[in-house]
C-alpha cells in the first residue's frame, strides 16, 4: 500500500508600503507606526482577490470531495498549514472563509499542522534547542489553531519547509512526532527516495520526517499549464497513473494552496483536474489518501537524513536552501537587525510594538529583497508588491529604524514613569507624565 499525502500551505503576508511611500518622521506611537508602514488597503484587496480566485473555489471543491468519499473505505484526505498572519486577516476581513476551514477540521478528513505564527525565520535564532522566539511563535500558532478551528495539531512544518538537524530536534522537543521537509537529492544519498519516511541522525532526534516529492508536486504547482512540458496537458487519469507507479510507501504532494486558481488560473482546468483526481487515483487498489500524522503512524522510518545547520534545506528556488531569504547583503542586514532590535522591543514590554516587530519578521519581506536574476528571479518579481528589491529594503530599513526609536522612547518613559518610581519618592516627575501621554 502507498499513501498519497496532500499538504497545502496557505499564507498571505501583511505587506508593507513601498519604501518611497513610507515617511516615518515624527512618529512616536505603535499605532501610528502600524498605519504608516503597512498597506492595509492593498492587503485587503489582495486577500479578496485571492479568496475569490482560489481560497473559496478550492476549499469548496475539496470539501465536496471529502463529502463524496466519506462513506468509502478509502477516504479523500487533505492537510493544511494556515499561517497565523493569514488567520488574523480572515478573522478580520473574511470570517466566512474561516468557516469553510472549520468545516474541513470537523470532517475528520483534514489535518492542520502547526508552524511559526508569523511565518518567520525565527527558527534560525538561538543555539541548540534554545530558540525562545521560535518556540513562542509556534506556541502562539498552536493556541490559535486550537481556538479558531478547535483542533490540536500534532504535526509541524517550518516556514517554507526550512529544515536542519537542530530545527528538527527543537521541534521534537516541543512535542511533535512528525514534520515536513523538502525531498532534495543532496540529502538522499544512495537508495533513498522521498517515498519513505526518515528521521534525523539517531543521536540527534527520533522525529519522523516526511519529504516532499518535488517532481510530482511541481508537475501540478508549476508545470500544470506549461505548454512546453512534454506532459501537457496534464489530466487526472494521466497523473493518477504516475502516482500509481510509486514504488515506496508515501507520496508527499506539498504545494502552495494558491496553486489552485491563482498560480494556475481556473481556465487552465486546474479545478476540473483536482475534482477528478481522487476518483482516478482510487481506481488503483494499492493507493489511498492519508494525512501526515497518519502516514507517520502507518509506516516506520526507513533511514536517516543528515542536514547540518550550515546546509539548511527549504522548498524555495532551484537551490532549495535559505538563499531566497538570506542570500544577499540587504537580506542578511535586515535579518540581523530584526534580531538585534527584537531585544529592545521586548524590553519595552509594549505588546503592540512586539506585534509589529513580529509582523516584520514574516519571511516574505526578506523574499522581496532577493536579487536573483535568473529563472527564480521572475518568481520573486511575480510575488513582490514592490518595483525593486531595493524598494522593499528601503521600507524595511525605515520601519525597523522607527520601531527601534519608539521602543527606546517607551523604555525611557517607563524608567521616568511615576508608576515605577523609587519607593519613598514624594511626587511623580512631571516629565514622566508628559512622556506617558505622548506615548
Amino acid at each position, binding site marked *: 500500500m502507498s499513501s498519497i499525502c496532500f499538504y497545502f500551505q496557505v499564507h498571505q503576508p501583511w505587506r508593507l508600503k513601498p*519604501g*518611497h511611500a513610507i515617511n516615518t518622521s515624527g512618529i512616536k506611537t505603535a499605532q501610528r507606526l502600524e498605519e504608516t508602514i503597512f498597506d492595509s488597503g492593498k492587503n485587503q484587496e489582495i486577500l479578496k482577490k485571492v479568496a475569490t480566485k482560489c481560497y473559496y473555489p478550492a476549499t469548496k471543491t475539496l470539501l465536496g470531495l471529502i463529502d463524496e468519499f466519506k462513506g468509502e473505505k478509502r477516504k479523500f484526505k487533505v492537510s493544511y498549514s494556515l499561517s497565523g498572519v493569514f488567520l488574523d486577516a480572515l478573522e478580520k476581513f473574511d470570517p466566512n472563509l474561516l468557516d469553510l476551514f472549520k468545516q474541513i477540521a470537523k470532517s475528520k478528513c483534514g489535518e492542520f499542522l502547526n508552524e511559526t505564527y508569523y511565518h518567520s525565520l525565527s527558527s534560525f535564532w538561538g543555539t541548540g534547542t534554545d530558540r525562545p522566539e521560535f518556540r513562542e511563535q509556534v506556541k502562539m500558532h498552536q493556541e490559535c489553531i486550537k481556538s479558531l478551528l478547535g483542533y490540536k495539531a500534532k504535526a509541524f512544518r517550518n516556514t517554507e519547509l526550512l529544515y536542519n538537524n537542530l530545527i528538527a530536534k527543537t521541534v521534537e522537543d516541543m512535542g511533535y512526532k512528525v514534520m515536513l521537509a523538502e525531498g532534495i537529492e543532496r540529502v538522499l544519498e544512495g537508495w533513498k527516495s522521498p517515498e519513505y519516511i526518515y528521521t534525523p541522525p539517531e543521536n540527534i532526534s527520533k522525529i519522523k520526517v516526511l519529504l516532499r516529492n518535488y517532481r510530482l508536486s511541481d508537475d501540478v504547482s508549476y508545470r500544470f499549464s506549461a505548454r512546453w512540458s512534454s506532459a501537457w496537458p496534464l489530466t487526472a487519469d494521466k497523473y493518477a497513473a504516475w502516482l500509481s507507479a510509486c514504488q515506496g510507501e508515501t507520496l508527499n504532494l506539498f504545494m502552495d494552496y494558491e496553486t489552485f486558481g491563482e498560480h494556475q488560473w481556473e481556465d487552465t482546468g486546474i479545478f476540473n483536474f483536482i475534482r477528478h483526481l481522487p476518483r482516478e487515483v482510487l481506481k488503483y487498489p494499492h493507493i489511498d489518501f492519508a494525512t501526515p500524522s497518519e502516514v507517520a503512524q502507518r509506516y516506520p522510518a526507513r533511514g536517516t537524513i543528515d542536514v547540518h545547520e550550515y546546509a539548511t534545506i527549504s522548498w524555495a528556488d532551484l537551490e532549495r536552501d535559505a538563499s531566497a531569504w538570506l542570500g*544577499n*547583503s*540587504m537580506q*542578511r*542586514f535586515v535579518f*540581523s537587525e530584526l534580531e*538585534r532590535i527584537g531585544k529592545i522591543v521586548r524590553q519595552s514590554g509594549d505588546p503592540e510594538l512586539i506585534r509589529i516587530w513580529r509582523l516584520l519578521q514574516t519571511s516574505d519581506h526578506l523574499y522581496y529583497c532577493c*536579487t536573483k536574476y535568473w529563472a527564480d528571479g521572475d518568481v520573486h518579481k511575480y510575488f513582490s508588491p514592490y*518595483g*525593486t*528589491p*531595493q*524598494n522593499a*529594503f*528601503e521600507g524595511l*530599513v*525605515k520601519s525597523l*529604524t522607527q520601531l*527601534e*526609536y519608539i521602543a527606546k522612547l517607551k523604555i525611557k518613559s517607563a524608567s521616568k514613569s511615576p508608576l515605577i518610581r523609587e519607593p519613598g519618592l514624594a511626587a511623580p516627575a512631571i516629565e514622566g507624565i508628559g512622556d506617558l501621554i505622548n506615548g
Partner: protein
Amino acid sequence: MANANMFFMLEIQVIPQITKKFFRVVIFLKDHGIDADADISATFILPHNKEIIFLPTPDKKINYVYPESTSRFIHRIERGIYMIQSKNKAIFLAKKIIVNAKYEGKVYKKDASIQ
C-alpha cells in the same frame, strides 16, 4: 541647446540611526524613482566646527560590514543603497550629516539631523 544632464535628477534619502554600540547611516539614491549609483561622500558635523569625512570603499564592490567596523568607508550594499556603520566614538557627538553625491556630472547634497 538643452543640456542632457537636465534629465537626470538624483534624489538622496539619509536615514541615520544611533544604537548603544554603533552609529549607522543608510543612504538611498534614486533617479526618478530608479535606484542609482553615484560617487558619494558623507561629512559628519561635530561640535566646534570639526568634521569627519567618510569616502566610498576603494573597490566599489557590493559589500556589507558588521557593526564591529571602525573604518571610515561608505559601503555599497546594493545598487542605490549605501551604508556607513561605525563605532568611532567621535561620531556619536555629531548633530548633522551631509551627504554629497556626484551623479552624471552634477553634485547633489542632502543634510540630515541626527535624532
